[in-house]
């Protein structure tokens, strides 16, 4: 689904060049739930931005759903982003003057769906996150957890092939965070491919696999102890 090979990304100023990612390789298969962890400044968010086609990269290769994305122009990248990727942000990033339905409607508009199809998908995704009754509520009228659920509904509405979550519970209290993580796990069980960036080890263990990044490089691809134990039990 997502394959980066020897990828590099550097930020340059007049005097210094800083590598955010260096010789970075990762392979996320279809249906996987991968947690990307690492200390602040390790390159997690840069990886997610590149994975989400929000940012270009320097060297290396990146294949998304089998397609090489190097050299794509803005229109092509925007179309791919719209069709194949769903974003879940730490700060929810709902548009304040749009209600929940209209927020979910945004990617569907750019997708070119007709009105009936958009309405169907909005209702379906709101129902999926348990907020059918809150469609006309504005972000300011929703709790943090509900806002993140709306953001997840927005990410799901276009039936993306890949969900990218950047610290999805970072702005939530424990109870709300648990609810959001339960929802992500449920989506994964239903077949979604999820890449979640987090610095919280407790969240990371709920993923299928953890990828640890330090100084822009993958340093540990060891499977989660819980999953290893489960694998042993099965065998």
């Amino acid at each position, binding site marked *: 689904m997502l394959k980066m090979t020897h990828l590099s990304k550097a930020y340059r100023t007049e005097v210094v060049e800083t590598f955010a990612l260096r010789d970075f390789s990762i392979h996320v298969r279809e249906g996987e739930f991968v947690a990307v962890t690492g200390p602040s400044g390790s390159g997690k*968010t840069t990886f997610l*931005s590149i994975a*989400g086609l*929000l*940012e270009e990269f320097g060297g290396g290769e990146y294949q998304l759903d089998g397609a090489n994305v190097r050299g794509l122009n*803005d*229109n092509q990248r*925007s*179309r791919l*982003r*719209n*069709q194949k990727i769903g*974003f879940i*942000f*730490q*700060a929810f*990033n*709902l*548009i*304040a*003057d*749009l209600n929940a339905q209209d927020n979910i409607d*945004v*990617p569907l*508009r*750019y*997708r070119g769906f007709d009105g009936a199809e958009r309405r169907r998908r909005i209702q379906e995704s709101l129902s999926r996150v348990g907020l059918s009754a809150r469609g006309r509520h504005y972000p300011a009228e929703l709790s943090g957890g509900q806002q993140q659920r709306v953001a997840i509904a*927005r990410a799901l509405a*276009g039936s993306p092939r890949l969900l990218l979550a*950047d610290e999805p519970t970072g702005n939530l209290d424990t109870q709300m965070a648990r609810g959001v993580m339960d929802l992500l796990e449920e989506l994964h069980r239903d077949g979604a491919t999820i890449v979640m960036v987090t610095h919280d080890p407790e969240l990371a263990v709920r993923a299928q696999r953890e990828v640890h990044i330090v100084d822009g490089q993958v340093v540990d691809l060891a499977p989660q102890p819980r999953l290893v134990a489960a694998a042993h039990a099965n065998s």
Partner: protein
Amino acid sequence: MLKYYLTLALRSLKRNVVLTVLMIAAIGVGIGASMTTLTVFRAMAGDPIPAKSGQLFAVQIDNWGPKKGVVIGDKDNLQEQISYPDATGLMNARAAHRQSAMYATGFALTPSNPDLRPFQVQARAAYADFFPMFDVPFRYGGPWTAADDEDHADVVVIGHDLNDKVFGGANSVGKTMNLDDHEYRVVGVLDRWQPTPKFYDLNNNKYGKPEEAFIPFTRAIDQQLPSWGNNNCGGDAGAPGWEGRLHSECIWMQFWAELPSAADAEHYRTFLNNYAAEQQRLGRFHWAPNTRLRNVREWLAYEHAVSQEVKILVLVSFSFLLVCLLNAMGLMLAKIMGRAADIGVRRALGANRGAIFAQCLIEAGVVGLAGGLLGLALTGLGLLGLRSLLSDDVNRLTHFSLSNVAIAVTLSVAATILAGLYPTWRAAQVQPAWQLKAQ
């Protein structure tokens, strides 16, 4: 997507009412100022006869010569009017498709209705060609004939206002009218007709209404109707009396010729030069032929139909509009950059640069539309304010027309979109990754 972008634009404008009001006010004030002056300018500078302005020519003949030492006209020392000898000479030649010598005159009208007191009427002495040449519309009847010109007939064409006043608006064709104690038979009543400016005689009340009565030139000369217009004898009035005036080199008449094609105009130029050369041979002119033909547009420019002050005022007000637009551009930039995070989210959700560009540009267009409507209201106020400064004739012309509304709204929307191009371009350049990292 257009409807979607319009909805987004209205939502965005409601989100920050203060900025929105400031933008609309900046554009509205600029549009109001520029449209006020433009309305005055258009009233004064419009093409009074668009369908034929390239085919109608004012004739100028230098009958004073360079030795006269009197500079008339703009730069070429050519008089703006012609003398009676030249008027009759050109009429007798009949060298144009249509032609008419003419002069402003007037008389006392004594109504047959005893309830009405006698009053003065401004009139024009002209030839029958005057009416078809200038596309003059008739409500009743029509112009007199060329035979009436030759017969020096007692016929009159009157304006609809005069017809309303004297005949109660009824068809007065065939009725008589007492003008300066002579009975004239009405042959035609004009419909609404107001060439602006009154190009055929810019010396006399150029933004005023056309005359209310027209009589044959030949009859007016017979009756010795004096000129009520501009007269200039260049210091030599000639012999006293009416006959003296007719044979003098005083200029007090206008001469217009209709020349449908460029070839006709060229032939007429040659004819005019030959005419002047003949006058030279006859000993009347002691200088080389100096004649000019100018079509309506050239004539209005030559005569400075629009004063320099009005042109400067238009320039100043459009400069003011530019300043207002720059202000609006700054406000738009501030507004759009304040929404960079939302734009970043939209980009992340699949909007390409073109979609963001279109969304912001439509928002600018909505601001422009609102600014244009405010500008229209301010233009109305501006024109009211100008009434104390302008003459009654110009005031009468400076009214709101549908074309003014169209110009104001189009100008406002186009100018605002133009001013919005830079902020919109900046919006389209928003890097979604940076915006989202900054959250």
